[in-house]
Protein backbone atom coordinates (compact mmCIF):
# COMPACT_ATOMS: atom_id res chain seq x y z
CA UNK A 1 0.00 0.00 0.00
CA UNK A 2 1.38 3.40 -0.99
CA UNK A 3 1.05 6.16 1.62
CA UNK A 4 1.72 9.76 0.64
CA UNK A 5 2.47 12.47 3.19
CA UNK A 6 2.86 16.25 2.86
CA UNK A 7 4.61 18.36 5.51
CA UNK A 8 3.64 22.05 5.71
CA UNK A 9 5.80 24.39 7.72
CA UNK A 10 7.99 27.45 7.49
CA UNK A 11 11.43 27.59 5.94
CA UNK A 12 14.02 26.62 8.55
CA UNK A 13 11.52 24.75 10.72
CA UNK A 14 12.69 21.31 9.65
CA UNK A 15 9.91 20.07 7.38
CA UNK A 16 12.38 18.59 4.87
CA UNK A 17 14.34 16.90 7.68
CA UNK A 18 11.07 15.52 9.06
CA UNK A 19 10.25 13.99 5.65
CA UNK A 20 13.77 12.52 5.40
CA UNK A 21 13.58 11.10 8.94
CA UNK A 22 10.21 9.53 8.17
CA UNK A 23 11.68 7.90 5.03
CA UNK A 24 14.62 6.48 7.01
CA UNK A 25 12.33 5.23 9.77
CA UNK A 26 9.97 3.66 7.23
CA UNK A 27 12.85 1.74 5.64
CA UNK A 28 14.02 0.57 9.07
CA UNK A 29 10.44 -0.55 9.76
CA UNK A 30 10.68 -2.93 6.83
CA UNK A 31 9.13 -0.96 3.96
CA UNK A 32 10.69 -1.60 0.56
CA UNK A 33 9.91 1.75 -1.04
CA UNK A 34 10.60 5.08 0.65
CA UNK A 35 11.10 8.50 -0.88
CA UNK A 36 11.29 12.03 0.56
CA UNK A 37 11.82 15.31 -1.23
CA UNK A 38 11.33 19.04 -0.76
CA UNK A 39 8.83 21.03 -2.81
CA UNK A 40 10.99 22.27 -5.64
CA UNK A 41 10.54 25.93 -4.85
CA UNK A 42 12.68 28.84 -3.83
CA UNK A 43 12.59 28.28 -0.05
CA UNK A 44 13.24 31.14 2.32
CA UNK A 45 13.55 31.12 6.08
CA UNK A 46 10.13 31.87 7.61
CA UNK A 47 8.08 31.54 4.40
CA UNK A 48 5.53 28.71 4.02
CA UNK A 49 7.25 25.61 2.58
CA UNK A 50 6.33 21.99 2.03
CA UNK A 51 8.03 18.62 1.79
CA UNK A 52 6.82 15.22 0.62
CA UNK A 53 7.27 11.60 1.64
CA UNK A 54 6.13 8.33 0.09
CA UNK A 55 6.12 4.97 1.88
CA UNK A 56 5.23 1.60 0.41
CA UNK A 57 5.77 -2.09 1.10
CA UNK A 58 6.64 -2.31 -2.62
CA UNK A 59 9.28 -0.43 -4.60
CA UNK A 60 8.28 3.10 -5.60
CA UNK A 61 8.75 4.24 -9.19
CA UNK A 62 6.43 7.27 -9.23
CA UNK A 63 8.34 10.58 -9.42
CA UNK A 64 5.76 13.35 -9.51
CA UNK A 65 4.94 15.65 -6.61
CA UNK A 66 2.16 14.61 -4.22
CA UNK A 67 -1.27 16.10 -4.89
CA UNK A 68 -3.61 13.72 -3.05
CA UNK A 69 -1.97 12.96 0.31
CA UNK A 70 -3.09 10.36 2.85
CA UNK A 71 -1.65 12.39 5.71
CA UNK A 72 -0.84 16.08 6.05
CA UNK A 73 1.43 17.35 8.82
CA UNK A 74 1.30 21.01 9.86
CA UNK A 75 4.38 22.15 11.77
CA UNK A 76 3.05 25.69 12.28
CA UNK A 77 -0.74 26.20 12.25
CA UNK A 78 -0.13 29.91 11.56
CA UNK A 79 0.41 29.10 7.89
CA UNK A 80 -3.17 27.82 7.64
CA UNK A 81 -4.27 31.44 7.13
CA UNK A 82 -2.44 31.51 3.80
CA UNK A 83 -2.18 27.84 2.79
CA UNK A 84 -5.10 25.43 2.30
CA UNK A 85 -3.51 22.39 3.93
CA UNK A 86 -6.46 20.07 3.23
CA UNK A 87 -6.24 20.63 -0.54
CA UNK A 88 -6.34 17.27 -2.30
CA UNK A 89 -6.47 15.31 0.98
CA UNK A 90 -7.89 11.81 0.45
CA UNK A 91 -11.43 11.21 1.73
CA UNK A 92 -10.26 9.26 4.80
CA UNK A 93 -7.06 11.31 5.08
CA UNK A 94 -5.72 12.73 8.33
CA UNK A 95 -4.36 16.16 9.19
CA UNK A 96 -1.82 16.13 12.03
CA UNK A 97 -1.55 19.53 13.71
CA UNK A 98 1.10 20.87 16.07
CA UNK A 99 -1.29 22.44 18.60
CA UNK A 100 -2.19 22.23 22.30
CA UNK A 101 -5.86 21.90 21.28
CA UNK A 102 -7.72 18.59 21.13
CA UNK A 103 -9.08 17.39 17.75
CA UNK A 104 -12.64 18.10 18.97
CA UNK A 105 -11.64 21.75 19.43
CA UNK A 106 -10.49 22.08 15.81
CA UNK A 107 -12.97 22.73 13.04
CA UNK A 108 -11.75 21.10 9.86
CA UNK A 109 -13.59 19.12 7.16
CA UNK A 110 -11.51 15.97 7.74
CA UNK A 111 -10.07 13.65 10.41
CA UNK A 112 -7.77 15.62 12.68
CA UNK A 113 -4.97 14.45 14.97
CA UNK A 114 -3.21 16.82 17.37
CA UNK A 115 -0.06 16.86 19.44
CA UNK A 116 1.58 19.76 21.30
CA UNK A 117 4.98 19.39 19.67
CA UNK A 118 6.09 22.88 20.69
CA UNK A 119 5.60 22.20 24.41
CA UNK A 120 7.19 18.76 24.07
CA UNK A 121 10.22 20.39 22.39
CA UNK A 122 10.50 22.98 25.16
CA UNK A 123 10.21 20.33 27.90
CA UNK A 124 12.94 18.25 26.27
CA UNK A 125 15.07 21.36 25.75
CA UNK A 126 15.46 20.83 22.02
CA UNK A 127 15.93 24.29 20.61
CA UNK A 128 17.84 25.65 17.63
CA UNK A 129 18.65 29.33 17.81
CA UNK A 130 16.06 29.63 20.58
CA UNK A 131 13.32 28.12 18.41
CA UNK A 132 11.68 24.83 19.56
CA UNK A 133 12.43 21.85 17.30
CA UNK A 134 9.01 20.45 16.42
CA UNK A 135 9.93 18.14 13.54
CA UNK A 136 11.28 15.21 15.57
CA UNK A 137 8.24 15.01 17.91
CA UNK A 138 5.92 15.22 14.90
CA UNK A 139 7.68 12.28 13.20
CA UNK A 140 7.22 10.40 16.49
CA UNK A 141 3.50 11.19 16.37
CA UNK A 142 3.35 9.94 12.76
CA UNK A 143 4.57 6.52 13.90
CA UNK A 144 1.25 6.25 15.79
CA UNK A 145 -0.84 7.34 12.80
CA UNK A 146 0.87 5.36 10.01
CA UNK A 147 0.73 1.59 9.78
CA UNK A 148 4.12 0.27 8.86
CA UNK A 149 6.25 2.86 10.70
CA UNK A 150 7.23 2.01 14.28
CA UNK A 151 8.49 4.33 16.98
CA UNK A 152 11.68 2.34 17.62
CA UNK A 153 12.68 2.88 13.99
CA UNK A 154 11.91 6.60 14.29
CA UNK A 155 14.16 6.87 17.36
CA UNK A 156 16.90 4.95 15.57
CA UNK A 157 16.66 7.24 12.51
CA UNK A 158 16.88 10.30 14.77
CA UNK A 159 19.92 8.90 16.58
CA UNK A 160 21.68 8.23 13.26
CA UNK A 161 20.99 11.73 12.00
CA UNK A 162 21.79 13.84 15.06
CA UNK A 163 25.05 13.52 16.95
CA UNK A 164 24.54 15.56 20.11
CA UNK A 165 20.92 16.11 21.16
CA UNK A 166 20.04 12.76 19.57
CA UNK A 167 18.79 11.41 22.89
CA UNK A 168 16.63 14.47 23.66
CA UNK A 169 15.13 14.41 20.15
CA UNK A 170 14.42 10.69 20.39
CA UNK A 171 12.75 11.22 23.79
CA UNK A 172 10.63 14.03 22.35
CA UNK A 173 9.57 11.74 19.49
CA UNK A 174 8.53 9.03 21.95
CA UNK A 175 6.62 11.49 24.10
CA UNK A 176 4.73 12.78 21.06
CA UNK A 177 4.05 9.19 20.02
CA UNK A 178 2.38 8.62 23.41
CA UNK A 179 0.51 11.93 23.51
CA UNK A 180 -0.88 12.31 20.00
CA UNK A 181 -4.70 12.24 19.90
CA UNK A 182 -6.80 11.29 16.86
Amino acid at each position, binding site marked *: MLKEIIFYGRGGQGGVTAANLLASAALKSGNKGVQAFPFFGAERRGAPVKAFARISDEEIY*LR*SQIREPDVVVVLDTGIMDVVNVTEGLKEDGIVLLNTPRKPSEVEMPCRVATVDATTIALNNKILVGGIPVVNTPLVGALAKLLDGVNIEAVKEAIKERFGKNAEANANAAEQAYNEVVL
Partner: protein
Amino acid sequence: MIQKIDAKKMVVTGDYAAAYGALLCDVDVVAAYPITPQTIIVEEFSTFVNDGITDAEFIMVESEHSAMSACIAAQAAGARTFTATSSQGLALMHEMLSIASALRLPIVMPVVNRTVAAPIGIWCEYNDTMPQRDSGWLQMSCEDNQEVLDMIIMAYKMGEHKDVLLPVMPALDAFILSHTVEPVDAPSSDEVLDFISHYKPHAILDPDNPMAIGTFTPPEYIQELRYQHHVAMNNARKVIKDVTKEFAQKFGRDYHGLIEAYKCDDAEVVLITMGTVTGTARDIVDEMRAKGKKVGLIKLRFYRPFPIEEIRKIAENVDAIGVYDRSISYGTGGPMFIETKNALYGMEKPVVNFLAGLGGRDVVKGDVEKMFEILLKAKEGEAKEEIYWINTRGVSI
Protein backbone atom coordinates in the same frame (compact mmCIF):
# COMPACT_ATOMS: atom_id res chain seq x y z
CA MET B 1 43.91 6.44 -0.69
CA ILE B 2 40.63 6.03 1.12
CA GLN B 3 40.00 4.33 4.42
CA LYS B 4 38.30 0.94 4.16
CA ILE B 5 34.54 1.48 3.97
CA ASP B 6 32.03 -1.29 4.65
CA ALA B 7 28.97 -1.97 2.51
CA LYS B 8 25.82 -0.33 3.85
CA LYS B 9 22.25 0.57 3.06
CA MET B 10 21.67 4.32 3.12
CA VAL B 11 18.70 6.66 2.63
CA VAL B 12 20.34 9.52 0.75
CA THR B 13 19.92 12.17 -1.94
CA GLY B 14 21.12 11.68 -5.52
CA ASP B 15 23.80 14.29 -4.88
CA TYR B 16 25.07 12.34 -1.88
CA ALA B 17 25.03 9.13 -3.92
CA ALA B 18 27.21 10.82 -6.57
CA ALA B 19 29.74 12.07 -4.00
CA TYR B 20 29.78 8.71 -2.25
CA GLY B 21 30.37 6.94 -5.57
CA ALA B 22 33.43 9.11 -6.21
CA LEU B 23 34.67 8.36 -2.69
CA LEU B 24 34.37 4.60 -3.22
CA CYS B 25 36.29 4.92 -6.50
CA ASP B 26 39.19 6.44 -4.56
CA VAL B 27 39.49 9.50 -6.78
CA ASP B 28 42.74 11.42 -6.36
CA VAL B 29 41.68 14.93 -7.32
CA VAL B 30 38.39 16.84 -7.16
CA ALA B 31 38.21 20.36 -8.58
CA ALA B 32 34.81 21.99 -8.51
CA TYR B 33 32.78 25.15 -8.29
CA PRO B 34 29.38 25.21 -6.56
CA ILE B 35 26.09 25.67 -8.43
CA THR B 36 22.56 24.74 -7.36
CA PRO B 37 21.42 21.92 -7.44
CA GLN B 38 24.83 20.28 -7.78
CA THR B 39 26.46 22.00 -4.79
CA ILE B 40 25.71 19.15 -2.37
CA ILE B 41 27.91 16.79 -4.42
CA VAL B 42 31.13 18.73 -3.92
CA GLU B 43 30.07 19.87 -0.46
CA GLU B 44 29.69 16.24 0.65
CA PHE B 45 32.97 15.29 -0.99
CA SER B 46 34.80 18.12 0.76
CA THR B 47 33.36 16.76 4.03
CA PHE B 48 34.88 13.34 3.26
CA VAL B 49 38.24 15.06 2.74
CA ASN B 50 37.84 17.13 5.91
CA ASP B 51 36.94 14.03 7.93
CA GLY B 52 40.04 12.24 6.68
CA ILE B 53 38.10 9.41 5.00
CA THR B 54 40.05 10.17 1.82
CA ASP B 55 43.31 12.00 1.20
CA ALA B 56 42.08 13.22 -2.20
CA GLU B 57 43.21 16.68 -3.25
CA PHE B 58 40.21 19.02 -3.15
CA ILE B 59 40.84 22.09 -5.30
CA MET B 60 38.55 25.09 -4.95
CA VAL B 61 38.55 27.08 -8.15
CA GLU B 62 37.01 30.36 -9.27
CA SER B 63 34.76 29.01 -12.04
CA GLU B 64 33.59 25.88 -13.79
CA HIS B 65 35.93 26.64 -16.68
CA SER B 66 38.79 26.45 -14.19
CA ALA B 67 37.33 23.33 -12.55
CA MET B 68 37.50 21.42 -15.83
CA SER B 69 40.94 22.90 -16.61
CA ALA B 70 42.26 21.67 -13.26
CA CYS B 71 40.73 18.22 -13.83
CA ILE B 72 42.32 17.99 -17.29
CA ALA B 73 45.74 18.86 -15.86
CA ALA B 74 45.38 16.45 -12.93
CA GLN B 75 44.16 13.59 -15.10
CA ALA B 76 46.98 14.22 -17.58
CA ALA B 77 49.40 13.96 -14.67
CA GLY B 78 48.03 10.48 -13.93
CA ALA B 79 45.36 11.20 -11.30
CA ARG B 80 41.84 9.80 -11.26
CA THR B 81 39.73 12.95 -11.15
CA PHE B 82 36.15 13.94 -10.46
CA THR B 83 34.04 17.07 -10.72
CA ALA B 84 30.36 17.97 -10.99
CA THR B 85 28.28 20.82 -12.34
CA SER B 86 24.89 22.02 -13.62
CA SER B 87 23.30 24.35 -16.12
CA GLN B 88 25.26 27.62 -16.63
CA GLY B 89 28.27 25.95 -15.05
CA LEU B 90 28.31 23.32 -17.78
CA ALA B 91 27.80 26.00 -20.42
CA LEU B 92 30.84 27.87 -19.10
CA MET B 93 32.80 24.62 -19.11
CA HIS B 94 31.92 23.86 -22.71
CA GLU B 95 35.23 25.03 -24.14
CA MET B 96 37.20 22.66 -21.89
CA LEU B 97 34.93 19.64 -22.48
CA SER B 98 36.28 19.03 -25.98
CA ILE B 99 39.83 19.35 -24.70
CA ALA B 100 39.26 16.70 -22.00
CA SER B 101 37.80 14.25 -24.52
CA ALA B 102 40.23 14.88 -27.37
CA LEU B 103 43.16 14.41 -24.98
CA ARG B 104 41.46 11.09 -24.16
CA LEU B 105 41.27 11.76 -20.42
CA PRO B 106 38.66 9.56 -18.67
CA ILE B 107 37.39 12.16 -16.19
CA VAL B 108 34.00 11.45 -14.60
CA MET B 109 31.61 14.35 -14.10
CA PRO B 110 28.00 13.97 -12.93
CA VAL B 111 25.82 16.80 -14.18
CA VAL B 112 22.62 17.68 -12.33
CA ASN B 113 20.30 18.62 -15.18
CA ARG B 114 19.07 22.17 -14.63
CA THR B 115 17.48 24.65 -17.00
CA VAL B 116 19.81 27.08 -18.78
CA ALA B 117 18.82 30.77 -18.59
CA ALA B 118 16.97 32.85 -19.69
CA PRO B 119 14.83 33.07 -17.67
CA ILE B 120 16.68 31.94 -14.56
CA GLY B 121 15.38 28.69 -13.08
CA ILE B 122 16.95 26.07 -10.87
CA TRP B 123 14.74 23.16 -11.91
CA CYS B 124 15.12 20.21 -14.22
CA GLU B 125 15.55 20.61 -17.99
CA TYR B 126 18.00 18.88 -20.31
CA ASN B 127 19.04 21.98 -22.23
CA ASP B 128 22.35 21.99 -20.35
CA THR B 129 23.62 18.49 -21.25
CA MET B 130 22.01 18.02 -24.66
CA PRO B 131 24.00 20.84 -26.34
CA GLN B 132 27.22 19.02 -25.25
CA ARG B 133 26.39 16.24 -27.73
CA ASP B 134 29.44 16.78 -29.91
CA SER B 135 31.91 17.35 -27.07
CA GLY B 136 33.12 13.78 -27.40
CA TRP B 137 32.06 12.60 -23.93
CA LEU B 138 30.02 9.54 -23.07
CA GLN B 139 26.67 10.93 -21.92
CA MET B 140 23.97 9.11 -20.01
CA SER B 141 21.05 9.73 -17.68
CA CYS B 142 20.07 8.06 -14.38
CA GLU B 143 16.61 6.96 -13.27
CA ASP B 144 17.15 6.79 -9.50
CA ASN B 145 19.75 7.39 -6.80
CA GLN B 146 20.92 3.78 -6.82
CA GLU B 147 21.75 4.17 -10.49
CA VAL B 148 23.62 7.41 -9.72
CA LEU B 149 25.94 5.64 -7.29
CA ASP B 150 26.33 2.57 -9.51
CA MET B 151 26.90 4.67 -12.62
CA ILE B 152 29.74 6.69 -11.08
CA ILE B 153 31.48 3.38 -10.40
CA MET B 154 30.76 1.98 -13.86
CA ALA B 155 31.71 5.31 -15.50
CA TYR B 156 35.32 4.99 -14.35
CA LYS B 157 35.50 1.44 -15.64
CA MET B 158 33.96 2.37 -18.99
CA GLY B 159 35.94 5.55 -19.52
CA GLU B 160 39.30 4.07 -18.48
CA HIS B 161 38.91 1.02 -20.75
CA LYS B 162 41.80 0.94 -23.25
CA ASP B 163 39.40 0.81 -26.21
CA VAL B 164 37.53 3.90 -24.99
CA LEU B 165 39.68 6.36 -22.98
CA LEU B 166 37.01 9.03 -22.91
CA PRO B 167 35.42 11.17 -20.19
CA VAL B 168 31.96 10.24 -18.93
CA MET B 169 29.04 12.50 -17.99
CA PRO B 170 26.29 10.76 -15.99
CA ALA B 171 23.28 13.07 -15.57
CA LEU B 172 20.71 13.21 -12.79
CA ASP B 173 17.52 15.24 -12.65
CA ALA B 174 17.57 18.45 -10.59
CA PHE B 175 15.72 18.02 -7.28
CA ILE B 176 13.77 14.96 -8.49
CA LEU B 177 16.98 13.03 -7.77
CA SER B 178 19.52 15.58 -6.54
CA HIS B 179 17.49 16.55 -3.45
CA THR B 180 15.30 13.44 -3.02
CA VAL B 181 16.25 10.80 -0.47
CA GLU B 182 15.63 7.14 -1.19
CA PRO B 183 17.25 3.80 -0.31
CA VAL B 184 20.68 3.19 -1.84
CA ASP B 185 22.75 0.04 -1.41
CA ALA B 186 26.40 1.02 -1.23
CA PRO B 187 29.03 -1.67 -1.81
CA SER B 188 32.23 -1.76 0.23
CA SER B 189 35.29 0.15 -0.98
CA ASP B 190 37.15 -3.15 -1.41
CA GLU B 191 34.48 -4.52 -3.74
CA VAL B 192 34.44 -1.30 -5.78
CA LEU B 193 38.22 -1.03 -6.09
CA ASP B 194 38.40 -4.67 -7.07
CA PHE B 195 35.80 -3.98 -9.78
CA ILE B 196 37.31 -0.83 -11.29
CA SER B 197 40.94 -1.74 -10.51
CA HIS B 198 43.80 0.70 -10.22
CA TYR B 199 43.88 3.57 -12.75
CA LYS B 200 46.66 3.06 -15.29
CA PRO B 201 46.99 6.21 -17.39
CA HIS B 202 47.92 5.78 -21.07
CA ALA B 203 50.30 8.74 -20.90
CA ILE B 204 51.50 10.82 -17.98
CA LEU B 205 52.85 14.34 -17.85
CA ASP B 206 56.07 13.81 -15.97
CA PRO B 207 58.70 16.50 -15.23
CA ASP B 208 61.46 13.85 -15.55
CA ASN B 209 60.29 12.84 -19.01
CA PRO B 210 58.91 16.07 -20.46
CA MET B 211 56.36 16.04 -23.28
CA ALA B 212 53.55 18.27 -24.44
CA ILE B 213 49.99 17.25 -25.29
CA GLY B 214 47.28 18.99 -27.27
CA THR B 215 49.75 21.37 -28.87
CA PHE B 216 49.58 23.17 -32.22
CA THR B 217 48.78 20.46 -34.77
CA PRO B 218 48.70 20.92 -38.54
CA PRO B 219 46.06 19.45 -40.90
CA GLU B 220 48.32 16.47 -41.60
CA TYR B 221 47.32 14.92 -38.25
CA ILE B 222 44.04 16.27 -36.85
CA GLN B 223 41.66 14.34 -39.09
CA GLU B 224 43.09 10.99 -37.90
CA LEU B 225 42.63 12.09 -34.29
CA ARG B 226 38.97 12.80 -35.04
CA TYR B 227 38.64 9.38 -36.65
CA GLN B 228 40.20 7.65 -33.65
CA HIS B 229 37.87 9.56 -31.32
CA HIS B 230 34.90 8.39 -33.42
CA VAL B 231 36.14 4.79 -33.28
CA ALA B 232 36.56 5.04 -29.50
CA MET B 233 32.96 6.26 -29.13
CA ASN B 234 31.78 3.33 -31.23
CA ASN B 235 33.94 0.96 -29.16
CA ALA B 236 32.19 2.30 -26.07
CA ARG B 237 28.99 0.49 -27.11
CA LYS B 238 30.50 -2.92 -26.45
CA VAL B 239 32.39 -1.73 -23.37
CA ILE B 240 29.19 -0.29 -21.85
CA LYS B 241 27.42 -3.63 -22.35
CA ASP B 242 30.35 -5.61 -20.96
CA VAL B 243 30.75 -3.37 -17.91
CA THR B 244 27.03 -3.38 -17.03
CA LYS B 245 27.05 -7.18 -17.38
CA GLU B 246 30.10 -7.53 -15.15
CA PHE B 247 28.56 -5.10 -12.68
CA ALA B 248 25.36 -7.18 -12.58
CA GLN B 249 27.38 -10.33 -11.89
CA LYS B 250 29.33 -8.71 -9.09
CA PHE B 251 26.72 -6.47 -7.46
CA GLY B 252 23.41 -8.04 -8.54
CA ARG B 253 21.97 -4.96 -10.24
CA ASP B 254 21.54 -5.20 -14.02
CA TYR B 255 21.32 -2.00 -16.07
CA HIS B 256 21.16 -3.84 -19.42
CA GLY B 257 23.74 -1.80 -21.34
CA LEU B 258 22.73 1.27 -23.35
CA ILE B 259 18.97 0.83 -22.98
CA GLU B 260 16.56 -1.12 -20.83
CA ALA B 261 13.48 -2.52 -22.59
CA TYR B 262 10.47 -2.71 -20.27
CA LYS B 263 7.57 -4.90 -21.44
CA CYS B 264 8.48 -4.41 -25.11
CA ASP B 265 8.28 -8.06 -26.21
CA ASP B 266 4.69 -8.02 -27.52
CA ALA B 267 4.22 -4.25 -27.45
CA GLU B 268 2.34 -2.50 -30.27
CA VAL B 269 3.65 0.92 -29.27
CA VAL B 270 6.67 1.93 -27.23
CA LEU B 271 7.66 5.15 -25.53
CA ILE B 272 11.32 6.15 -25.19
CA THR B 273 12.11 8.03 -21.98
CA MET B 274 15.24 9.24 -20.23
CA GLY B 275 15.80 10.17 -16.58
CA THR B 276 13.21 10.10 -13.81
CA VAL B 277 10.11 10.19 -16.03
CA THR B 278 11.02 6.56 -16.74
CA GLY B 279 9.88 5.61 -13.23
CA THR B 280 6.48 7.24 -13.64
CA ALA B 281 6.19 5.65 -17.11
CA ARG B 282 6.82 2.17 -15.62
CA ASP B 283 3.72 2.65 -13.44
CA ILE B 284 1.65 3.79 -16.44
CA VAL B 285 2.81 0.84 -18.57
CA ASP B 286 1.72 -1.53 -15.76
CA GLU B 287 -1.66 0.21 -15.41
CA MET B 288 -2.35 0.24 -19.18
CA ARG B 289 -1.19 -3.38 -19.53
CA ALA B 290 -3.72 -4.31 -16.80
CA LYS B 291 -6.38 -2.81 -19.09
CA GLY B 292 -5.16 -4.94 -22.01
CA LYS B 293 -3.27 -2.21 -23.89
CA LYS B 294 -0.06 -3.51 -25.44
CA VAL B 295 2.33 -0.72 -24.51
CA GLY B 296 6.05 -0.87 -23.75
CA LEU B 297 8.84 1.37 -22.58
CA ILE B 298 12.44 1.93 -23.61
CA LYS B 299 14.57 3.49 -20.91
CA LEU B 300 17.25 5.31 -22.86
CA ARG B 301 20.35 5.31 -20.67
CA PHE B 302 23.02 6.52 -23.09
CA TYR B 303 22.71 9.54 -25.36
CA ARG B 304 26.35 9.28 -26.50
CA PRO B 305 27.03 6.78 -27.88
CA PHE B 306 23.43 6.53 -29.10
CA PRO B 307 21.92 3.00 -29.02
CA ILE B 308 21.02 2.86 -32.72
CA GLU B 309 20.95 -0.93 -33.18
CA GLU B 310 19.10 -1.58 -29.91
CA ILE B 311 16.31 0.84 -30.79
CA ARG B 312 16.03 -0.42 -34.39
CA LYS B 313 15.67 -3.98 -33.14
CA ILE B 314 12.72 -3.14 -30.90
CA ALA B 315 11.20 -0.81 -33.51
CA GLU B 316 11.01 -3.65 -36.05
CA ASN B 317 8.22 -5.28 -34.08
CA VAL B 318 6.15 -2.25 -33.03
CA ASP B 319 3.69 -0.04 -34.92
CA ALA B 320 4.56 3.36 -33.47
CA ILE B 321 7.37 4.88 -31.41
CA GLY B 322 7.08 7.85 -29.08
CA VAL B 323 10.01 9.87 -27.79
CA TYR B 324 9.80 11.90 -24.60
CA ASP B 325 12.12 14.92 -24.47
CA ARG B 326 12.89 17.33 -21.64
CA SER B 327 14.45 19.94 -23.92
CA ILE B 328 13.92 21.29 -27.42
CA SER B 329 16.02 22.01 -30.47
CA TYR B 330 13.96 24.97 -31.61
CA GLY B 331 12.12 24.50 -34.86
CA THR B 332 12.98 20.81 -35.17
CA GLY B 333 12.08 18.85 -32.00
CA GLY B 334 13.58 17.25 -28.94
CA PRO B 335 17.22 16.07 -29.21
CA MET B 336 16.32 12.44 -28.45
CA PHE B 337 13.53 12.59 -31.04
CA ILE B 338 16.02 13.75 -33.67
CA GLU B 339 18.42 10.96 -32.67
CA THR B 340 15.65 8.37 -32.77
CA LYS B 341 14.50 9.42 -36.24
CA ASN B 342 18.09 9.19 -37.39
CA ALA B 343 18.40 5.71 -35.85
CA LEU B 344 15.19 4.56 -37.55
CA TYR B 345 16.08 5.94 -40.99
CA GLY B 346 14.59 3.77 -43.72
CA MET B 347 12.00 2.14 -41.45
CA GLU B 348 8.43 3.14 -42.23
CA LYS B 349 7.23 3.74 -38.69
CA PRO B 350 5.40 6.69 -37.19
CA VAL B 351 7.69 8.48 -34.71
CA VAL B 352 6.06 11.02 -32.41
CA ASN B 353 7.75 13.50 -30.07
CA PHE B 354 6.42 14.54 -26.66
CA LEU B 355 7.74 17.60 -24.86
CA ALA B 356 6.97 17.85 -21.15
CA GLY B 357 8.60 18.90 -17.91
CA LEU B 358 10.59 21.76 -19.42
CA GLY B 359 11.87 24.27 -16.89
CA GLY B 360 11.21 21.64 -14.21
CA ARG B 361 7.43 21.41 -14.62
CA ASP B 362 6.13 18.37 -12.75
CA VAL B 363 5.44 15.45 -15.11
CA VAL B 364 2.47 13.56 -13.64
CA LYS B 365 1.01 10.15 -14.44
CA GLY B 366 -1.75 11.75 -16.54
CA ASP B 367 0.88 13.38 -18.78
CA VAL B 368 2.56 10.05 -19.51
CA GLU B 369 -0.80 8.33 -20.03
CA LYS B 370 -1.67 11.02 -22.58
CA MET B 371 1.58 10.24 -24.46
CA PHE B 372 0.60 6.56 -24.72
CA GLU B 373 -2.95 7.43 -25.81
CA ILE B 374 -1.57 9.58 -28.63
CA LEU B 375 0.83 6.76 -29.56
CA LEU B 376 -2.05 4.29 -29.81
CA LYS B 377 -3.71 6.74 -32.23
CA ALA B 378 -0.45 7.12 -34.17
CA LYS B 379 -0.44 3.33 -34.61
CA GLU B 380 -3.75 3.70 -36.51
CA GLY B 381 -2.28 6.55 -38.55
CA GLU B 382 -4.44 9.04 -36.64
CA ALA B 383 -1.80 11.23 -34.99
CA LYS B 384 -2.31 14.79 -36.18
CA GLU B 385 1.09 16.16 -35.24
CA GLU B 386 4.67 15.01 -35.15
CA ILE B 387 5.52 17.04 -32.04
CA TYR B 388 3.18 17.29 -29.05
CA TRP B 389 3.62 19.83 -26.26
CA ILE B 390 2.07 18.15 -23.21
CA ASN B 391 0.37 20.26 -20.51
CA THR B 392 1.36 23.52 -22.18
CA ARG B 393 -0.69 26.72 -21.99
CA GLY B 394 -1.75 27.91 -25.44
CA VAL B 395 -1.47 24.41 -26.93
CA SER B 396 -4.52 22.19 -27.27
CA ILE B 397 -4.07 18.50 -28.06
